[in-house]
């Protein structure tokens, strides 16, 4: 049995290998750095996100309360002024749909919204531009 190594490498392979490996390491480190920058930006933005989520929840809650309190009056007044049956039923359906929609949204807590925003890879540049 021959003991010689029958495998070969491309010419000058080992001359360039060191640089290729160093480049690969630099690329990986840059990628890690940009990821950690993004993460730290998200941490900085967290108070603003809390604020935005709270305002959003308040607006939804206010709209829900208003829609619930206004709808009965509207129905009474519409029957008083003799608005057609079709128009009345359409309004009533739309108001029910609104109530279901707002009900669903009010079940979403501020914390859920914060978690959603943190867990999803939202472009922080866009968030900053919209602040």
């Amino acid at each position, binding site marked *: *049995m*021959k*003991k*010689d*190594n*029958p*495998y*070969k*490498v*491309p010419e000058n*392979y*080992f001359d360039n*290998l*060191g640089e*290729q*490996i*160093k480049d*690969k*390491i630099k690329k*990986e480190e840059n990628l890690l750095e940009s990821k950690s920058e993004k993460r730290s930006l998200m941490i900085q933005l967290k108070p603003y996100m809390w604020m935005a989520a709270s305002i959003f929840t308040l607006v939804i809650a206010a709209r829900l309360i208003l829609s619930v309190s206004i709808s009965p009056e509207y129905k009474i007044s519409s029957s008083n002024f003799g608005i057609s049956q079709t128009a009345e039923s359409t309004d009533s359906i739309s108001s029910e749909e609104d109530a279901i929609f707002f009900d669903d949204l009010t079940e979403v807590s501020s914390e859920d919204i914060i978690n959603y925003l943190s867990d999803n890879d939202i472009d922080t540049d866009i968030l900053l531009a919209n602040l």
Partner: protein
Amino acid sequence: MVSRSDDEILELFRDETSKEEAFGLLLKKYQERLYWQIRKIVISHDDTDDILQNTFVKIWKGLGNFHSQSQLFTWMYRIATNESLSFLKEKQRKNFGSTNGEVEELLLASLESDPYFDGDNAQLELQKAIIQLPEKQRLVFNMKYFDEMKYEEISGILQTSVGALKASYHHAVKKIESFLISREV
């Protein structure tokens, strides 16, 4: 240039100002040895190139935490060997849908299609005989026969007792002999 000892390289690596220089020295010193360790496991040059690069990335990341309970070269060989075996398992999974598929088949295909195999017919047959060995025997045979490593060194890398390695090598030689006789080389 005088080659630095592993301890000197480690010392330089721990100093942030000379970290890159130390890694450059480590690359120069070990790139070829690690290349051949990987190449004999995965056969193809292109696969070896990928695995070697990943191996050195892992070495770069882990070297700061390396404490010399084992020798530096043993630690690096272990990373290279593990990376190569993981690569083969992944290749098996991709080709056969599980790690139970015949790795021998994949390695033979690599050997036959590798443009950087330059052996004669007898060397080709020897490589085919090595490929049909079970994983552990193949590793031990290559390290002992081609790299002429001591059993103690192999033991540190494969984390297997010297006695078990001797038995593996013995079985490997017997299997290779009968393979070659059956092929009438």
